[in-house]
């Protein structure tokens, strides 16, 4: 087979796992890593699942590896924080079947809450990291990673970034290799990490690091291109592409392995060039190590630790070129917003009416922080809404949080929110928790989870009943309200915040993008009865605009027919239109 196809970076990573004979894959969705699992599911030879969170996903993969098959866990950079507990220790344990963890960093924060660098976590956990630059390499590096994992008895991280994960490039398809399942071998000293055993394993980890530092200089995934010796550049991954574009004349050492660093190879390269630069996005992980060996190099002195790089950025910084381009036009920004027909908009409109603060969480509903809704006050990480509200109550008392609610989505609640709710009950907290249940993991592109009743493969499964779950952990007041029934939601919320107990309100309505079939109704403004008061504009629906002359118009290409605006209008000036 030698077929050339175009693939998204994430699709190529999935293909790599398939060709490498991977048998088990687990993940929790997170931009920019989600499409890895969405493509793996297409291969029937791999068991794949959405786990409730990244820690569970990695542990599933570790179990599969221990049993003797090649396994994969994939996640975004902040997901690795959740999974770091098993990661640090599986580094000591090592593998039976190969274990690969794909982690997607997000330089430029396209869809994340921070800009952390996975290489720093990997260094601390002493786990090797490979970094491909395009779709072709993405597929090949996964295969290499499995070989490395089994040869050196270590989990291996593949670091991708948003630009690689969400870029398409050419790959050549290969066949899936047949890997015999390895027998499980009982080995308590290796697999039970209690202190006595872990002490011994730490020694193994250190000697593995040394072996890798030595051997990695000869790995085929590193490449050296000697051109003009005046400028030498050490780089890896996506920045390599910018280097080739901006400095085709330079000598380049492209590292395929970025942890641990192939020291001999780097020292040799450095000795052959006059001026050495290190070009890496985010933190100076390579640069600081290279400098610590007494090698002179230029890196973050002239290059930023923030955001993505580009060829022009390198032309300016390294070559001092004056890149003259026309200035950008001054135009209004277009930040992301909740879609027309989004049930969260309805819930937030009620919260605003009651002047409630929202302790927020991670999902589409984080956009409740954006004007004109502006009712989500905080967002830290997955699951933090409920626990941070609990902290506020413990700090300032029951009365203080009567104008606060925790706001969390169904998928995020299953991810880690449930722990926080258990804590709230256990430690005698009070407060109102709003679970915005749109029956999907919406922001990442609609993935199933434990409370949707479907698996990653689309098979029916037991559906975790959120009401029964909340009651089981000890919440006595659990209400389910249609998210678009604003008056019922308002009354339920009003009672809840004053109750001085824990109240869970599940505001339920499917994501507007998941509705099946054509729209059956829309709304339009009756100019005769419209008083132009602007109440209907308060929820910030993108389908409703105010014209220069003050007239209110509903755009029929956008209106989803949710009817929230009709509920807002006191003069009956917004009318339903039945479509066909």
């Amino acid at each position: 087979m030698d077929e050339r196809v175009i693939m998204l970076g994430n699709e190529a990573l999935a293909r790599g796992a398939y060709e490498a004979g991977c048998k088990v894959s687990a993940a929790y969705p997170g931009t920019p890593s989600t499409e890895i699992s969405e493509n793996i599911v297409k291969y029937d030879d791999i068991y794949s699942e959405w786990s409730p969170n990244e820690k569970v996903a990695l542990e599933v993969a570790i179990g599969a590896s221990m049993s003797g098959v090649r396994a994969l866990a994939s996640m975004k950079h902040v997901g690795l924080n959740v999974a770091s507990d098993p990661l640090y220790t599986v580094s000591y344990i090592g593998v039976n079947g190969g274990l690969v963890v794909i982690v997607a960093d997000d330089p430029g924060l396209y869809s994340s809450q921070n800009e952390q660098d996975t290489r720093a976590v990997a260094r601390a956990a002493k786990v090797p990291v490979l970094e491909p630059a395009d779709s072709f390499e993405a597929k090949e590096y996964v295969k290499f990673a499995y070989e490395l994992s089994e040869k050196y008895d270590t989990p291996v991280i593949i670091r991708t970034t948003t630009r690689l994960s969400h870029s398409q490039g050419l790959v050549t398809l290969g066949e899936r290799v047949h890997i015999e399942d390895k027998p499980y071998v009982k080995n308590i000293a290796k697999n039970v990490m209690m202190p006595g055993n872990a002490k011994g394993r730490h020694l193994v980890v250190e000697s593995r690091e040394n072996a890798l530092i030595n051997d990695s200089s000869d790995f085929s995934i590193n490449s050296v291109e000697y051109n003009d010796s005046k400028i030498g550049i050490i780089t890896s991954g996506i920045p390599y592409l910018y280097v080739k574009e901006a400095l085709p004349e330079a000598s380049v050492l492209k590292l395929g392995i970025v942890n641990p660093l192939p020291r001999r190879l780097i020292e040799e390269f450095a000795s052959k060039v006059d001026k050495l630069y290190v070009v890496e996005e985010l933190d100076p992980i390579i640069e600081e190590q290279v400098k610590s060996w007494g090698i002179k190099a230029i890196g973050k002195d002239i290059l930023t630790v923030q955001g993505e790089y580009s060829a022009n950025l390198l032309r300016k910084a390294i070559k001092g070129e004056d890149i003259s381009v026309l200035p950008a036009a001054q135009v209004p920004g277009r930040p992301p917003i909740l879609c027309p027909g989004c049930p969260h908009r309805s819930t937030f409109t009620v919260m605003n009416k009651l002047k409630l603060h929202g302790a927020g969480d991670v999902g589409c509903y984080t956009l409740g922080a954006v004007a004109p809704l502006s009712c989500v006050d905080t967002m830290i990480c997955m699951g933090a809404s409920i626990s941070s509200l609990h902290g506020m109550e413990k700090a300032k008392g029951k009365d203080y949080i009567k104008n606060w609610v925790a706001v969390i989505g169904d998928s995020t609640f299953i991810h880690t929110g449930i722990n926080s709710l258990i804590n709230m009950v256990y430690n005698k907290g009070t407060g109102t928790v709003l679970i915005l249940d749109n029956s999907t993991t919406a922001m990442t592109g609609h993935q199933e989870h434990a409370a949707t009743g479907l698996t990653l493969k689309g098979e029916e499964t037991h559906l975790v009943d959120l009401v029964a779950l909340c009651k089981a952990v000890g919440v006595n007041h659990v209400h389910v309200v249609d998210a678009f029934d604003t008056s019922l939601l308002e009354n339920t919320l009003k009672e809840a915040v004053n109750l001085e107990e824990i109240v869970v309100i599940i505001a339920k309505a499917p994501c507007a993008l998941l509705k099946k079939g054509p729209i059956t109704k829309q709304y339009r403004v009756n100019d005769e009865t419209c008083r132009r008061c602007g109440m209907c504009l308060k929820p910030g629906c993108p389908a409703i605009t105010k014209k220069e002359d003050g007239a209110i118009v509903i755009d029929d290409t956008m209106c989803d027919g949710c009817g929230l605006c009709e509920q807002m209008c006191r003069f009956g000036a917004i009318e339903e239109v039945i479509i066909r």
Partner: protein
Amino acid sequence: MVMNMKTKNIMIVGVGGQGTLLTSRILGGLTIKAGYDVKLSEVHGMAQRGGSVVTFVRYGDKVYEPIVEEGQADVIIAFEKLEAMRYAHYLKEGGAMVVNDQRIDPMPVVIGAAKYPESIIEDLEKKYRVYKIDALTEAKELGNSKVFNIIVLGIAAQHMDFSEEDWLTVIEETVPKKTIDINKKAFTIGYNQRTK
């Protein structure tokens, strides 16, 4: 393999939900069919939710960088006027821009914190080679407002290196089966509308 082809830079800009991903898939399919090296860069996740989205497509003998930078675009396909204006400076000298004459107010405009610029297309025409089309109206006449993006693509196709036949084949391979006919018709409307 086509040789000695200088890298061509295409950008597709619009508002999240307007179908930029489908359009880029079609372009990707075409370039590979023609034997080029190609890189495409897309936006997924939070930014897609009604935000400003941009897709980069680069093809040629050998493509490294997956993004198009300021002053480099040969063709910009804009599904919305304000987005056309936002990214116009990415166009290189002599480049062409196809603009769908549609206005979608961004939230700062909806809430009155900013004004939607007037006479965008006229202003763009002063500086750039601009082809405008009211694709939404044409698509509605065709019977499905959603295919407006393929009409716009049809116009842009006149400024790229592929035959009408190849375009239609790849459209057939890329769009959902039920919509093949209407998408092909939509493309032809754009492709036959001589850019003036």
